[in-house]
């Protein structure tokens, strides 16, 4: 069972890594923020799996902290982006 949990954690990390390769390179900054979001979720998932497999104590709190801060990078991104004049009126494409 331990091996299964670890293998699942590894599989998630692997898929996340593949996704990172695709979107860390862009094309846009919004895509890069998706990379941060993806690794956030994948990281929490594999963190929980690794903790369950190795029996490290108190890891739920680490995951809880990560989950709390998961949206922070995006929030900072939106906050620092050029102020939008009419957010809802424009259709970018």
């Amino acid at each position, binding site marked *: *069972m331990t091996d299964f949990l670890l293998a699942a954690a590894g599989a998630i990390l692997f898929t996340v890594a593949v*996704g990172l390769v695709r979107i860390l390179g862009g094309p*846009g900054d919004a*895509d890069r923020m998706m990379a941060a979001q993806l690794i956030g979720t994948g990281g929490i*998932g594999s963190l929980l799996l690794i903790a369950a497999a190795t029996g490290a104590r108190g890891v739920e709190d680490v995951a809880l902290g990560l989950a709390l801060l998961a949206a922070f990078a995006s929030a900072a991104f939106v906050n620092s982006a050029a102020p939008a004049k009419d957010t809802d009126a424009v259709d970018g494409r």
Partner: protein
Amino acid sequence: MSLVDLFSIVAIGAGVFFFLAGTVGLLRFPDGLSRLHALTKADNLGLGLIVLGLLPRAESPLAAFKLVAIWALVQLAGATTAQLVGRAVRRKGTAA
């Protein structure tokens, strides 16, 4: 193998599958908004199923509660990020 283990394996396996599906979507979809759509699958279902699979293995009720709270928080973060990033994509038209 006990029934609990089987349950964990099925749920976690399904969770990993959704992470995989989300990543494939990220790789294959042509524009920013649909990539965002793929990403949210990993957030919601992937992590949700993993938490579900880990629940019976939690050491204490508090730990189990924390697992659910983690999932709920990631839901919240995922939903807002999707909104915020999606709006940024639309605004800039970076969806090349």
